């Protein structure tokens, strides 16, 4: 029973921070709320039993990707008029949001009531959610995914290299003093 109540609390916190991320105007605030959201999602994954995934969620999302976002927000150091903070909360988006949620209730109703029973507990010695079980699965069935992830990372490195880097113009002239300079 403790698990259910903890799950409800964690889910409520995740939804609260997700709403704050979506509807707070300034990017630095929504970035901070998103970091909190990732923490509560990691807590949710712990409740679902996958410990390694929860720690990776903190390490990669909250510890690496959001650092990049905070860096760019600090780097650009914009004052509000350049930011375009005002959000155009249009009634169409509210309707769309409610439509999506009701659509989900429809699916759950069609999928059948058995989705509402609690998932059966883990066996005491089951290694679900640990690093060994994931390593076993990752390196046998999903080896091609493992290699292709490396290739995707390489593509991203090359892409960023092309997009964001300009060769600095050589400030000092190329000619040394004793060489003559073209007129």
């Amino acid at each position, binding site marked *: 029973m403790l698990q259910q109540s903890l*799950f409800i609390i964690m889910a409520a916190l995740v939804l609260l921070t997700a709403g704050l991320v*979506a509807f707070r105007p300034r990017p630095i605030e*929504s970035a901070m709320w998103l970091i909190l959201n990732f923490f509560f999602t990691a807590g949710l994954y712990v*409740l679902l039993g996958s410990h390694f995934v929860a720690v990776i969620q903190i390490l*990669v999302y909250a510890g690496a990707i959001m650092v990049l976002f905070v860096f*760019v927000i600090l780097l650009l150091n914009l004052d509000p008029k*350049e930011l375009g903070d005002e959000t155009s909360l249009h009634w169409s988006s509210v309707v769309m*949001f409610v439509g999506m949620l009701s659509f989900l209730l429809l699916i759950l109703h069609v999928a059948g009531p058995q989705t509402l029973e609690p998932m059966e507990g883990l066996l005491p010695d089951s290694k679900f959610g640990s690093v060994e079980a994931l390593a076993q699965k*990752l390196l046998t*069935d999903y080896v091609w995914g493992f290699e292709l992830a490396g290739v995707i990372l390489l593509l991203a490195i090359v892409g960023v290299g092309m997009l964001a880097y300009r060769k600095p113009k050589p400030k000092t002239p190329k000619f040394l003093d004793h060489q003559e300079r073209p007129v």
Partner: protein
Amino acid sequence: MSAPIAYVLFLSFAVFCFGACGFLIRKNALSLLICLELMLSGVNMAFVGFSRLHQNEGGNVLYFLVITVAACESAIGLALILNFFRLKKSVRLDEARALEG
């Protein structure tokens, strides 16, 4: 005895909806990418939820692949935003009018 799969799915769909709504109503590029990260995090929740339901590690492995794509996507997205900022001196999306007829 963990929570039913319906709760996990409902939660992941709701987080995805928040991300999608934030994506549609924001006017500056940085918040756009932040809401995109929120949508990806919602999708990850569904993967882990199903992985827990069938007690099979496949969902967790897919979670890893989605994280790789999310990181590469936000890296490239921010590179584009930096170039856009270098051009237009602001990240307001209303400035991006070059393609308007």
